[in-house]
């Protein structure tokens, strides 16, 4: 029965591939006949799972590709199915008819909510939890809930990888016996002493609920922290892998350099997480750096170009995830020159009909108010809601230009001055680049 089912699954996966779709369907299909199909696979020793609110896709991609460059055979859910069916699909494509996964390594990006179903069965050797931030509140409730949901899938034998700079993520290290590898960033030029943001994810000590003190921040509540209560020992853990320098899209780690895809802070953390996993697997550090840099060198850069001698930055964000927008706020804040900002999206959520707006008040738009802003162009169905938020961030209403969509905004874009920072939901990036093409 198992053989027939796996054969059928493989055929379905092949047909799906022909029509260019179906990162989930083959997995869903075989699950109809056998709910416990996941238990029928035999996996290699090295199974790496990456989860978290953001960055899991990039981290997975780096780990899988570098393994391949080292010459290993790798199974990974490249097509993006990151729930149970997506995992089954990935394993189906890479196994023998007997269910033995033929690759040396399995690397899986996984949705936070499916960890508890899948991990107890596939029992991965390594688990990376990139971050737990405010994300899709109508679906994810809050960070405490997501943390406890992920914990349900973890067991002692799994090697965990955690961001040392993130106080909230340390909940996974509390009262557990797991081997834990910590990564983080030392004080950089862009680090700051006085908090620019509201601590959204971990406002207090996770052990005693006292306030946290910081030597410096990288962003939001990430930085070098220590509990204000003398009797409590909670502080930034010792980092096993540390980025010691960052400039011109290049990070220094263990004295080697890695060229990043772009110079956003989240990129450093994703790369660091991947680097830590690869290093702990015993791979050569010089080669890892070379391979990651090569991955990024080949990439065509869409996020930075010039328009009629003006610099254009296209910053990708996720609606209902205030942390992504806060990264963009900090990025523009660090450029002290004159600028025009564009903010907008097509849809707040693709998952549900509701339009939740509370996260707009978790984004520190106040950081825009003391910059040299020519104008702020807002577009999309919630353009007035964005404008209202900007008004309450003390931004001069006259500077806010409101448009139905980005095509409507062409004239204002041409008239505007300074560098252009487009802070967009991912579903508006193509539209924006098209408009920019037209204006050239």
């Amino acid at each position: 029965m198992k053989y027939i089912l796996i054969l059928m699954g493989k055929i379905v996966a092949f047909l799906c591939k022909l029509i260019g779709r179906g990162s989930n369907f083959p997995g869903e299909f075989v699950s109809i006949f056998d709910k416990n199909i996941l238990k029928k696979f035999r996996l290699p020793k090295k199974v790496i799972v990456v989860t978290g609110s953001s960055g899991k896709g990039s981290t997975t991609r780096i780990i899988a590709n570098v393994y391949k460059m080292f010459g290993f055979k790798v199974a990974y859910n490249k097509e993006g199915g990151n729930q149970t069916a997506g995992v089954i699909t990935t394993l189906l494509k890479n196994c023998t008819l007997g269910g033995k996964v033929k690759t040396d390594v399995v690397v899986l990006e996984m949705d936070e909510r499916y960890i508890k179903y899948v991990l107890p069965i596939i029992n991965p050797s390594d688990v990376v939890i990139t971050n737990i931030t405010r994300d899709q509140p109508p679906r994810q409730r809050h960070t405490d809930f997501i943390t406890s949901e992920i914990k349900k899938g973890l067991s002692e034998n799994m090697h965990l990888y955690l961001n040392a700079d993130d106080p909230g993520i340390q909940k996974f290290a509390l009262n557990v016996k797991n081997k834990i590898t910590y990564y983080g960033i030392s004080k950089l030029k862009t680090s700051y002493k006085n908090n620019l943001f509201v601590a959204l994810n971990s406002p207090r000590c996770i052990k005693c609920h006292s306030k946290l003190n910081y030597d410096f921040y990288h962003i939001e509540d990430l930085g070098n922290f220590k509990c204000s209560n003398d009797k409590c020992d909670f502080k930034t853990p010792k980092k096993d892998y540390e980025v010691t320098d960052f400039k011109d899209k290049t990070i220094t780690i263990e004295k080697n350099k890695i060229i990043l895809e772009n110079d956003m802070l989240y990129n450093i953390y994703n790369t660091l997480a991947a680097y830590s996993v690869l290093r702990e697997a015993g791979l050569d550090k010089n080669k890892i750096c070379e391979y990651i840099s090569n991955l990024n060198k080949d990439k065509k850069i869409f996020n930075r170009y010039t328009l009629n001698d003006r610099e254009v930055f296209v910053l990708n964000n996720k609606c209902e995830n205030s942390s992504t927008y806060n990264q963009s706020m900090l990025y523009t804040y660090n450029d002290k020159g004159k600028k025009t900002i564009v903010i907008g999206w097509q849809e707040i959520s693709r998952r549900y009909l509701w339009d939740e707006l509370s996260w707009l008040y978790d984004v520190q738009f106040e950081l825009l108010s003391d910059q040299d802003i020519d104008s702020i162009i807002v577009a999309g169905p919630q353009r007035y809601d964005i404008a209202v938020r900007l008004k309450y961030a003390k931004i001069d209403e006259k500077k806010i230009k409101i448009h139905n969509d980005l095509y409507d905004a062409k004239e204002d874009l041409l008239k505007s001055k300074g560098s252009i920072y487009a802070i967009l939901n991912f579903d508006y990036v193509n539209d924006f680049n098209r408009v920019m093409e037209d204006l050239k």
Partner: protein
Amino acid sequence: MKINVLCLYYDIMNLYGDTGNIKVLTYHFDEQNIKYNIDYLSIDDTIDFSKYDLVLIGSGNENNRFICLNHLLKYKKDIKDAINNGTFFLVTGNAISMFGEKLYDKDALGIFKFKVEEAKERISKEVILENKIVSPIYGFFNHQDIMYGNDNLLFKDEGILYKNFYGTFTLGPLLSRNPEFLEYFLKKLIKHKDKNFKFKKINTDLNVKAYNQFIEFKKTKVFNSHKK
């Protein structure tokens, strides 16, 4: 005139953009040339409720809410006195559940008669709340509480209105999204302090556009999804 505001549990009861309401109020205080002071206090502070004209509390996760309730219990009488003396409260999201007699199996503040049980399923949805005060309230619920025995409803089927206590399960930016309610609340608050206050124009032009646009948008969005 100076308005004293307490933003209570600003750090751990600010789960869904709730402190946005402070940004809204201070903007309009500035606009009306009203002086104000805001105290941001939390679980390690001592609170003198008699000092304030307005107290704001927002949403929290289940653990933090019990930590706050524990901290608030010693102020039970002070809170009751403040409410009876006309102090304004603006309580958004699941914070309102702390003001009943029971919150799940724990004793709550006992200011109001209701009891709160834990819902089996999370109540997470967009809401349009009809009411007797202003145009329907647009908002969002994201909590896990069921309230029994509440007879001081603020909106239809929901919330608490008692003297100047305004509580609702609507979370986050209640005031910015509902300009009529914002104006109503702002005027009540200021007139309570100074009966003869001469108001300048309350600038809610953008808010009104956002409110109307949202209604229009929802019509097309539902329509489109039916087409699919």
